[in-house]
């Protein structure tokens, strides 16, 4: 990877011209452990424009994480293909950064080493870059701490800093805030939106929290469970920048009711 656009010294300037469109073309993923045929993702087609923020909402076990794994390149789809900027993906890549559900900072490295690891592996590590990113995430002074010394929320912010250090066009986030307490979660949601506003990266964000999905996204993809299919894609035409006060507006509650209705309908069908 010697793509020059990957190293953007000034995020605000680079904001307008980023790649990072995702196209998922009839992707299915079937697991076959001990001859048991389990369809995790069933024929999902989805297009995400560069710079768009899309959340995927669904009950646990609906295959939303599998979908993310296919886009990240961790697993090959059984059929169908994933395209990024028009090219079929081949395994994981630095252009698609991933934030994991439970913290996956490397426990044997300090926070600074963790943030620097991406650039270091590509031979492009800059002095002071890690501190700059940590400060941006409100983590100044944690450089020499080990991950286990930080709280859950701080760890998750450090993981976002690690991803930003690589300057990927796409951020794939797999329920990154689900293990946090409500207050920390809200704070991180606002922080993530700021980062997204500044840098204009494409974000695919997986969650099972309806409010979180609507608050963050341009579009919400509602998935059905077993097998995982796209039930509906809901446009969220709420103005930006957003802050948490808008979660009490009439517009927001109307959207929330609509999505909840979709989910309940789905749950009823599943029970029959």
């Amino acid at each position, binding site marked *: 990877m010697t793509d020059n656009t990957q190293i953007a010294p000034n995020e605000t300037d680079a904001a307008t011209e980023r790649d990072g469109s995702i196209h998922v073309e009839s992707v299915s993923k079937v697991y076959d452990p001990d001859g048991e045929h389990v369809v995790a993702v069933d024929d999902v087609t989805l297009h995400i424009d560069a710079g768009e923020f899309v959340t995927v909402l669904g009950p646990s076990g609906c295959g939303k994480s599998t979908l993310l794994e296919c886009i*990240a390149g961790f697993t090959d789809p059984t059929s169908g293909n994933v395209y990024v900027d028009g090219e079929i993906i081949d395994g994981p*890549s630095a252009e698609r950064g*991933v934030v994991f559900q439970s913290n*996956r900072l*490397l426990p*044997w490295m300090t926070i600074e080493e963790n943030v620097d*690891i*991406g650039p270091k*592996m590509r031979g492009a590590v800059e002095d002071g870059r890690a501190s700059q990113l940590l400060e941006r995430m409100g983590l100044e002074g944690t450089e020499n701490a080990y991950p286990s010394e930080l709280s859950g929320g701080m760890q998750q912010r450090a993981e976002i800093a690690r991803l930003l250090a690589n300057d990927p066009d796409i951020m794939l986030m797999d329920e990154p805030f689900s293990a946090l307490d409500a207050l920390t979660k809200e704070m991180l949601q606002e922080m993530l939106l700021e980062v997204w506003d500044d840098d204009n990266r494409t974000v695919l964000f997986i969650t099972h929290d309806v409010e979180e999905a609507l608050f963050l996204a341009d579009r919400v993809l509602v998935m059905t469970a077993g097998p995982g299919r796209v039930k509906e894609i809901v446009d969220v035409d709420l103005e930006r920048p957003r802050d948490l006060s808008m979660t009490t507006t009439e517009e927001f509650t109307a959207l929330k009711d609509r999505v909840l209705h979709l989910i309940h309908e789905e749950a009823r069908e599943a029970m029959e």
Partner: protein
Amino acid sequence: MSTATAIERRLPSLFEVSRRLVSLAGLVLVWTAISSVGLIGGLPGPVAALTALVALLGNPIIHESVSISLLHILGSFVIAAVIGVPLGLLIGWKTVVHDLVFPSLEILRPVPPIAWIPLTILVLPSMRSSIMFITFLGAFFPILLNTIQGVHDIEPDYVRAIESLGGTSTDVFRNVIYPGALPSIHTGLVIGMGLAWVNLVAAEMVADEGIGRFVWVSYTSGNFENIVASVILIGALGYASSEVIRFVGRWQLSWTQLDD
């Protein structure tokens, strides 16, 4: 269980030391009682054994025996670590290597290392190489198995994290597989050192060399004080070599101690 005891363990206070002395005194008392009542014939008491130990420390024969044994231990242990750790990392990381190498090692593993000695005496060129091979086997399997286990216990998402940050296979090995397996490698090295001594003493008694030979000769010549004294010496040497490994481990694994 509490933090207070954890700190006490690292920095033994005077109180703690005196408790240990009480425990030690109890042991000596039981020993004295057994030997003076004559419950077990021929067993020397603590005073006789300690006198013999002091005399032993100035004895050139024991110096030679101890240096031979330490050479055996050092050589075998280093070879076991140099082969066991890289092989364990590969077996744990790559399924193909696992399937091709591990089954034949699994056939050999349940054999108590000392059982090989009649065969190695026949096959290998010298007694010394037989003893070292047995000692090597004692250390090799714990190191190998713990290394493999260490790799298997690594959270797969760590590998994914490195891959999604643009890391190659080499990056995964250097940043995840090796450091992730390190605590378990360390456990393997500590257990391996213990079993190296177990097998060394056995092999030296059978093959008649080093400190094992000294213990056995003391027995056959009826010098019971020297038996007990040299057994104490072996215990001290074994303990010291395990402490060296533990010390290196603590220094290498500073990040794991934060979880305490």
